């Protein structure tokens, strides 16, 4: 047993470290995107990589997202392991055709001959006061596309571990980075980062008996806060952090809901057709006789992302979560 020097680190630092370690270990790992080189990215997530590994390993590309992802496809075809940064959620949309028609399908359409180990990092979600097109929660599009993994960390440790696992994956991974957690801090030792978990395992972040909150990414801290607040109301809430939307850890979710008998899914993305719908659909199928109440959702409204001055009303907050928990038919 060694003592490690835990220091407060931000999620941004952990992500940077994950790329750095991956690049140091594997010369085929290449980082590319808009402003990722000299500037280190608009969020500074790639800070220092160009300096350490050269511009050829951490490349400022021309400003064209389809071109970036398309070029990454070609690089992966040749055996490289590109890590692509999309500058903001909504700026990944120009690359949609490359993503759906090639990235997601290439392994399948070549019968396994040509897997594409591409990690696509997408800073996503709101709560940072960004102007329009800078706060979309676009995960529904990715989740509905077979062939993609969809991963999203909610903690500093997971940011490192899941990004390492994503880069190591032989499949394309949409790696969703919750923007507003970039500067969240935790005790974490960058010199001895935690073991890399595989992709696809959810974690119970808080055990409880009354009901299960199922969430991921930016909504995890909100759910944990809600669970604390719920104690006052007499509810002991369990909180499950999905960590990956695809693969979806059905076992973990079902096990928790069977225990508690009630569930609320929480995410920032619009509710209608959002990832929460799938989770609800599976829970009601697999836990039908265990449910004391319908599975409810707390999500962003079904509206385009609002302007900064109104976003607090749109985002799932503690009160709205508690109001929803209150609707879980406790009287029965």
């Amino acid at each position, binding site marked *: 047993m060694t003592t490690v020097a835990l220091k407060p680190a931000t999620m941004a630092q952990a992500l940077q470290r994950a790329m750095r370690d991956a690049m140091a270990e594997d010369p085929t790992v290449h980082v590319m995107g808009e*402003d990722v080189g000299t500037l280190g990215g608009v969020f500074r997530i790639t800070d220092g990589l160009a300096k350490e590994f050269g511009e050829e390993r951490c490349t400022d590309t021309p400003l064209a997202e389809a071109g970036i992802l398309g070029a990454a496809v070609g690089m992966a075809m040749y055996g490289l392991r590109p890590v692509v940064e999309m500058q903001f959620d909504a700026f990944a949309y*120009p690359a949609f055709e490359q993503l759906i028609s090639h990235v997601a399908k290439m392994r399948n359409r070549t019968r396994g001959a040509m897997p594409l180990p591409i990690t696509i990092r997408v800073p996503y979600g709101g709560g940072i006061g960004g102007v329009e097109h800078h706060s979309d929660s676009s995960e529904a599009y990715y989740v509905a596309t077979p062939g993609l993994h969809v991963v999203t960390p909610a903690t500093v440790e997971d940011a490192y571990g899941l990004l390492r696992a994503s880069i190591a994956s032989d499949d394309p991974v949409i790696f969703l980075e919750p923007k507003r957690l970039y500067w969240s801090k935790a005790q974490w030792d960058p010199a001895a980062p935690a073991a890399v978990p595989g992709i696809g395992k959810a974690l119970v972040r808080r055990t409880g008996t009354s009901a299960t909150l199922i969430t991921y990414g930016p909504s995890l801290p909100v759910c944990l806060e809600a669970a604390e607040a719920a104690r006052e109301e007499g509810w002991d809430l369990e909180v499950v952090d999905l960590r990956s939307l695809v693969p979806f850890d059905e076992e973990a979710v079902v096990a928790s809901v069977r225990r508690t008998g009630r569930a609320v899914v929480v995410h920032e993305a619009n509710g*209608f057709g959002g990832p929460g719908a799938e989770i609800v659909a599976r829970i009601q199928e697999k836990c039908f006789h265990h449910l004391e109440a319908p599975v409810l959702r707390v999500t962003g409204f079904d509206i385009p992302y609002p302007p900064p001055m109104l976003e607090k009303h749109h985002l799932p907050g503690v009160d709205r979560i508690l109001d929803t928990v209150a609707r879980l038919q406790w009287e029965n």
Partner: protein
Amino acid sequence: MTVQELPGAGASHRSTPPPAWRPRTDAAPLLPDPEPYRVLGTPAAEKLDAALMRRCYAELVRGRRYNAQATALTRQGRLAVYPSTVGQEACEIAAALVLEEQDWLFPSYRDTLAAVARGLDPVQALTLLRGDWHTGYDPREHRIAPLSTPLATQLPHAVGLAHAARLRGDDVVALAMVGDGGTSEGDFHEALNFAAVWQAPVVFLVQNNGFAISVPLAKQTAAPTLAHKAVGYGMPGRLVDGNDVAAMHEVLSEAVRRARAGGGPTLIEAVTYRIEAHTNADDATRYRGDAEVEAWKAHDPVELLERELTARGMLDEAGIQEAKDAAEVMAATLRDRMNAEPVLDPMDLFENVYAEQTGRLREQAEMLRAELDAEEQS
């Protein structure tokens, strides 16, 4: 020995290529001049229109002051973010001035100044950047499209609008603005191609300010100039000194005239420089040196014009002071008005998603209404 002299080699084994072969237009007139077009400080300045230039000067001074005020507002927390056009005022002003009432402007996210110079209330122009509603004005009222954040996506809109106006027989020109970085996007390509095929009355103005955030032009393109891109679409390309408001006005006017007369689209590259950081949130020292910035400061659009006009006796100290005073008034008004906290109604979130609220939006609106009521009561 040529092929004709070969035994058996006659007309029979040669074929005349079908006519579809011929290039349909001559490329030469499409090519930009090798050097950016300039007026100020050159013999062409002879013919300057004094009234127009004084107007330009007043607008430049006002524009510079507007930039300074907007940046100050970010420091005071009154604006969430501001992409400055210090150094690029000649482009912004000229773009606004060359258009007629009925024409349309398609600004990028950086071009609030052009919108303001076209007559838009600066508070409305800054709504987006303040964190207030996305578009603070009715685009049809001033014929200014919403400021476009997704780069180059406004260009096909300009083409479609200009095309529609032409189909309707209306005298409308659309002027679309984009940055050097934006020229790399697929939408730039598709828009220019559509415009040329449809001969739509559009003018594309690229402000090449040297950088796309941190990425210098050399990493953005290997083209001789961005204006050279025009030839690939069959439209003329013009290269112009973007800090020379007289040159900008002339080249833009000519392109607008051409479009209005049915002559089709033009691509204009204005060579300029972003003196300040990308936005107030950016740190430009990470990617460029002071020397470059200083070199460009010496080629300042406001000073260029001021020197020319002063030298020519078209502008005196009083005139300069007058422009500055007017700019100060504008700045003070803007500051005061921006100090008033905007009042937004959260219930508006559910408006204008569709023409008619859907059932699920009504449900969500009711939920928020109840939450707000509860909040009020507590």
